């Protein structure tokens, strides 16, 4: 009976530390699984794993640690249910890395500005998960390359190239989407 109190306190300590990051965890899981119920299952699974490893966690930044576990649980779910979504990315595509930025012209910038939010969501959802996750961690969670490298288990240099590639893919998708009238009519424009 003597272990009761520590385990009780431990669960409370864990909740105090991990619950503030539940939105970040769910958002990442939701973007990996593409649906609510599976995302909830992934987060629950991840939180229980996190609770198990909680005693071994001595860092000060909980969010990257927790998101790393969520991502891992998300990938386990993908492997089981959407194995074709887990595609290896060719990060050694040096030919691509040497390319200059696209020769952006004024109309294209305007087109991107006017890109509809629904198109942005669609474009992000359509990205290979390896690009999607770095973009989410960078733009939505505003994490550093170092934290992203740790969460996605890739070198910092790879974070840098995947982010650049992800942005380029988003740009292409949005420029294409913008000229599809069907989408433009159903959603709002970006206000900025």
């Amino acid at each position: 009976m003597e272990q009761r109190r520590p385990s009780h306190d431990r669960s409370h300590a864990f909740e105090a530390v991990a619950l503030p990051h539940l939105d970040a965890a769910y958002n990442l899981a939701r973007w990996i699984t593409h649906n609510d119920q599976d995302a909830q299952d992934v987060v629950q699974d991840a939180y229980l794993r996190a609770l198990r490893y909680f005693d071994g966690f001595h860092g000060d930044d909980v969010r990257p640690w927790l998101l790393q576990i969520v991502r891992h649980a998300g990938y386990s779910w993908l492997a089981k249910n959407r194995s074709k979504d887990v595609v290896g990315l060719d990060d050694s595509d040096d030919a691509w890395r040497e390319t200059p930025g696209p020769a952006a012209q004024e109309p294209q910038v305007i087109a991107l500005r006017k890109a509809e939010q629904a198109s942005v969501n669609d474009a992000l959802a359509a990205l290979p998960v390896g690009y999607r996750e770095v973009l989410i961690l960078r733009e939505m969670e505003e994490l550093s390359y170092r934290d992203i490298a740790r969460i996605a288990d890739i070198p910092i240099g790879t974070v840098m190239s995947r982010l650049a590639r992800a942005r380029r893919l988003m740009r292409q998708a949005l420029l294409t989407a913008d000229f599809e009238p069907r989408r433009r009519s159903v959603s709002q424009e970006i206000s900025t």
Partner: protein
Amino acid sequence: MNAAPLWEELSAFVDGELEPARAGQIASHVQHDSTLRRQVQEIGRLSAALKAPSCYFLAPKTLRSAVCRAAAERSRPKGSTVLSRWFAWRPMASALALAGLFALSIRLADPAVTATDRLQEEIVASHLRATMSRRLVDLESADPRALAPFLSSRLDFAPSISELDVAGSSLVGGRIDYVDGRTVAAVVYRVGDHVLDSFVWPTGKGDQRVTQTSKRGFQIARWSRGGMAHCLISDVSAEQLSAIVRQLESSIAGRTSS
């Protein structure tokens, strides 16, 4: 090497992830190159679009409670039974019992605390009443030998009256006051611009060392010696009052021992 940045480096530049020196070089490139400038704008637009609330999925409330429930369930040792769950309440029960005991001990200590408190309130009130009503003294006199018989004739004890040996101080007089449920002697001094009341009354309790506190901006010092309770109150500084107490205390001690 100060080459114009490629897309990848530009992307890291926008993210603020480059070495400061290189970031500075790129900043000047961007400044002078309209194509680079548009690319930076594009990355910025995309970033803003991805930060839109409609892109961010907030955790449903049910998930929050489900996670809490699961964490609590998992923290419970295996083979958890109804009995052991009941015992899980034990820490809370003992905490409640402790809290109860604590409250009880406070209540037990209460009379003593309020007695000191009440006395201090009375002393402050008495001091304020006297200083504000300008009826500071019943008999105005700077001579202890004139004051002593005046006070003892109106009291059931004979207070000893000392002159203050503190710079800028003088004996003003004495009055009869009512403190702690009985009539007491109040000897009034002036210390500079401050009025100092020195209350004296007989006490059945033994000697008590000096305790000094502040109450509502007044300094209060109390002690007992030779069956007499002493209480000084004034708006002098704490240090000044300490000095006065030391001086009065030693003169009283000298008198009671002689």
